């Protein structure tokens, strides 16, 4: 109980730091993330460079800090887009005619049949690599899940007793939809989204790792991890710190997401 509180507190605090790094990297960074200094390449973590330097002598700490915006940003952007798309498509499908709804759900089911990461890969194949394309790919890969949840929620809420009660009381259909159905759907979606952000960050990092995302010299965690893997034995810090950054960010998002879900389900703590 207390451990869980502490865990949640740490998660919130860590995400706050990540957010700070993403919005105002210069407050935290000690160096220019792009500035190379080949003479001090592969320096171990120390006073001059907190997290050491990479093969071109760039400061790993500053790159991790500057990478936050891109790495977390892709995840956030993708999740936000997926939630909006899911909400619109899913709730429309939920209130449409049975045939339309059934057709839309079949398409979603077919998309759900494929592993998310494979879909993201294929979308990048079609669009070509790049930061924005990765965000789009991750969105498309994630969206069917949100569509389905939004649709199920819309359906359930549409026939839920409290919505029915409102209807019997004479509340109009539009008002019922916007006041009772939509907020409920959005609520479930946002809880899912908090957990989904983690997945999106991981998927985006995977694409970057494969060289399909942002390209050097841009600081991005997946890319940095990939860049250091050949010198792991000699300069572990190049990969380890961005790796930790990803893991901790995703853990934090997940912990918060789970807490939100627990709250939404009414069991506290």
């Amino acid at each position, binding site marked *: 109980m207390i451990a869980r509180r502490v865990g949640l507190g740490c998660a919130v605090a860590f995400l706050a730091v990540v957010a700070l790094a993403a919005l105002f990297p210069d407050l935290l960074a000690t160096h220019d993330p792009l500035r190379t200094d080949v003479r001090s390449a592969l320096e171990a973590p120390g006073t001059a460079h907190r997290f050491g330097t990479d093969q071109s002598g760039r400061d790993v700490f500053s790159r991790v800090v500057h990478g936050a915006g891109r790495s977390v940003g892709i995840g956030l952007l993708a999740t936000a887009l997926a939630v909006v798309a899911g909400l619109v498509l899913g709730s429309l499908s939920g209130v449409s005619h049975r045939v339309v709804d059934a057709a839309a759900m079949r398409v979603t089911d077919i998309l759900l049949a494929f*592993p998310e990461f494979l879909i993201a890969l294929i979308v990048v194949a079609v669009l070509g690599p790049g930061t924005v394309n990765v965000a789009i790919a991750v969105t498309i890969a994630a969206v069917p899940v949100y569509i389905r949840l939004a649709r199920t929620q819309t359906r359930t809420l549409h026939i839920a007793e409290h919505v029915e009660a409102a209807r019997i009381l004479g509340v109009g259909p539009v008002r019922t939809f916007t006041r009772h159905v939509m907020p409920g759907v959005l609520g479930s979606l946002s809880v*899912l989204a908090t957990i989904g952000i983690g997945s999106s960050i991981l998927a985006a990092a*995977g694409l970057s790792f494969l060289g399909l995302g942002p390209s050097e010299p841009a600081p991005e965690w997946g890319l940095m991890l990939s860049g250091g893997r050949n010198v792991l034995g000699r300069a572990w810090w190049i990969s380890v710190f961005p*790796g930790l950054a990803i893991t901790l960010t995703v853990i934090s998002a997940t912990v918060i997401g789970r807490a939100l879900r627990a709250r939404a389900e009414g069991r506290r703590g």
Partner: protein
Amino acid sequence: MAASAALVLWGAATLAFLAFRIIPGDAVSVMLGPQAKVSEAVKAGVRAELGLDRPPLEQYVSYIGGVLRGDLGTSYQLRMPVTEVIGRQLGPTLQLTALALLIAVLIALAVALLARRGVARAVMIAGELIVLSSPVFWIGIVLLAVFAFGLGWFPVAGTRSAATIVLPALTLALPVAALISQVLRDGIDQAERQPFAETVRSRGARSSRLVLRHSLRHGAAGALTLAAYLIGSLLGGAVLVETVFARPGLGRVTLTAIVDRDLPVVAGVIMLSALVFVIVNVVVELLHPILDPRLQARPAVFEAPAIEERR
């Protein structure tokens, strides 16, 4: 069930076909070699050869016809039938994923059954969270660094000795194991909160009997659905794991095909993945009623598992 299966496969084929059409740029220029100074006439010839000059609907019909005959076209880059390209690389990936699945299930069972309460349980839950929050390539790199470069227990790469498959399979297995053990544990916990668990204990049963004879089976139903879904997702993971461990296999082929825009191969992978989904689901649909007889009456549905679990 057959209808759902056919629907998924048809959907996949259509998706694959659309991938061909949506791609920006001229497919022929993409497929022709580097710095090709080729006249328009030659390009037109290639286009005709591939049937790209025909109306889209006609192309679609002939593509679906090909798929029905088991013909997925010819790879642009490898100039080989796609079925052969995939067939050749299927072996290593199949070995890898099968072993990964086995390891994952064993780990998940061990974790869910042995770490039932107390500190062990808390540690396992934290471990699962860490594994699930770490990119699979990062897990692979850490395992490589520790067990191959560091301790030297396993070879770094290669395909020939049996030991080379251990680390990649473990990498692929860990996130799957973490997911399955989470779901299994939740399922067991939930089952043990149900009144029947109290009945069983009131008969004088030990907790081991309760778990093994009763609640495990309840938990297994959810875990089975999830495991089935994860079998599909292993293919996605294989792309990363095969890259990290420099292993040959379908993952690498997929990645190369994607990078080179070898669309017939990409389409083939889409079809394969749909086929895997369908087969796995058929098997699961057959297994489910054995685990949970209440389901016998219900018609089979093709569905991915609950959403939060898809990580």
